[in-house]
């Protein structure tokens, strides 16, 4: 039922959006303001990458040790699960709006808000990952005379890597999405293109959406690579064996 005009319209908008990414043009408001082009896209993207990367690192530094420690002690399940649920239930738009209303705008505030949305999946997954780590391996480590800290660092953490990285990847999606609408809080990220059709036009909006999607996929690929590097060889072999027998 898709007619020819729909298809050409579809290609036309995307074609226009690609053109917007690569070449400058007059803004909707007139020729005195030039928009688009790789230089502007990069300027907006680099701000977003910087905020997202810092926020992701901060979220990992805050949430992972806490999740590992709670998981190791086997306490605080309620906290870990409740934080995870709350993180899903709080809309990113609400968080940004509340921040603008009560705390303020700017790079620092947006980075903090974005970090907050990155914490829940990492905390919950670190907790769950450690709880699911093979108890036999933990007992063996204790029998070898490892201290509790060593057990966390050298046994539970490596075994929990796939689960933890799952949390980090979810956090990365949350963070990039929220950094996008951070442009409502006075930070010029790619969201500026998406949220200001009256300046950039429809094609600018779609160009912004394309670049944001690519950015998220890029973060995902990098994190998948990191996960591959960090996953212990034993776990990879174990899974391959499980697949072969299944």
């Amino acid at each position, binding site marked *: 039922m898709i007619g020819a005009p*729909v298809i050409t*319209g*579809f290609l*036309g*908008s*995307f074609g226009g959006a690609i053109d917007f990414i690569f070449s400058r043009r007059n803004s909707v408001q007139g020729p005195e303001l030039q928009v688009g082009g790789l230089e502007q896209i990069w300027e907006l993207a680099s701000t977003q990458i910087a905020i997202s990367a810092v926020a992701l690192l901060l979220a990992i530094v805050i949430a992972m040790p806490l999740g590992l420690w709670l998981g190791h002690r086997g306490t605080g399940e309620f906290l870990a*699960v409740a934080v995870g*649920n709350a993180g*899903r*239930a*709080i*809309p*990113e*738009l*609400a968080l940004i*709006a*509340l921040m*603008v*209303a*009560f705390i303020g705008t700017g790079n620092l505030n947006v980075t903090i808000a974005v970090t907050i949305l990155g914490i829940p999946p990492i905390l919950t997954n670190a907790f769950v990952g450690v709880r699911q780590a093979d108890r036999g391996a933990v007992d063996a480590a204790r029998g070898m005379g490892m201290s509790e800290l060593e057990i966390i660092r050298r046994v539970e953490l490596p075994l929990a890597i796939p689960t933890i990285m799952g949390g980090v*990847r979810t956090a990365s*999606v949350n963070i*990039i*999405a929220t950094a*996008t*609408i951070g442009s*409502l809080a006075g930070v010029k990220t790619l*969201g500026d293109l*998406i*949220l200001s059709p009256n300046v950039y036009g*429809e094609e600018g*909006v*779609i160009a*912004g*959406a*394309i670049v*944001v*999607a690519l950015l*998220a*996929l890029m973060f*995902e690929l990098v994190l998948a690579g990191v996960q591959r590097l960090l996953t212990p060889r034993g776990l990879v072999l174990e899974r391959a064996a499980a697949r072969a027998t299944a």
Partner: protein
Amino acid sequence: MPAAVATLLADVEIRAPGTGPTTCEGRNEGVCPGFIIENIDDYVSPLVEHVALVFGSVLAGFAVAMLLAILSHGRRWLIPPFIGATGVIYTIPSIALFLLLLPITGRGTLTALIALALYNLQIVYRNANAGLANVPAAARDAGAGVGMTLRQLLWRVELPLALPEIIAGLRIATVSTVAIATLAIFAGAGGLGEVLYNEGIQRDVFKTNIVFGSVLAVALAIAFDGLLVVVQRFAAPWQRARAL
């Protein structure tokens, strides 16, 4: 809906912050309960739109994801491509997904429904898949032993036993969708994003609406989640609701 839009716009004029520095809303204080009570009617249609968006998209996403799960059940080679495809969609930030659909479906409710439904696929599919895989072999053997066909086995044994995990996935998907649907405003589909953005941030950062919009969104998420817990008790009475 032009008449409805017109009344909405008329109300907007009245509720503008700064109408009088002596009122709570005029001074744009944190929360003005008086203002909310006085204008409670204005929150009804965004809330109803929001509920409709969540309900429609979760239902559609759930149907497609279950179809995928049933398709890949017994055809294991389909599982990796399905997980991959739904995973790529899930990786795209929600606001970008809304706008990438604009050239295809235009501004409006349909675009928002499709984007939100696509976003649910990954969670529901993964859980349904895990639920079906975790069905005890003994239950399957017993079914086969009393002469069930593969289809009967699926509908009478495997799906019922997988139900707790399927509904756990549905709960996560629903709660996330309530939150993400606030962004539907940027696809021209209304919802609580209207209270947060159009009537909040864009009305000189009107705090009352930002707070009340956030409260409504979180309350809605909790309400939907509670509803699904009840559904689960009825749908799988032999198993107590497993909280995630």
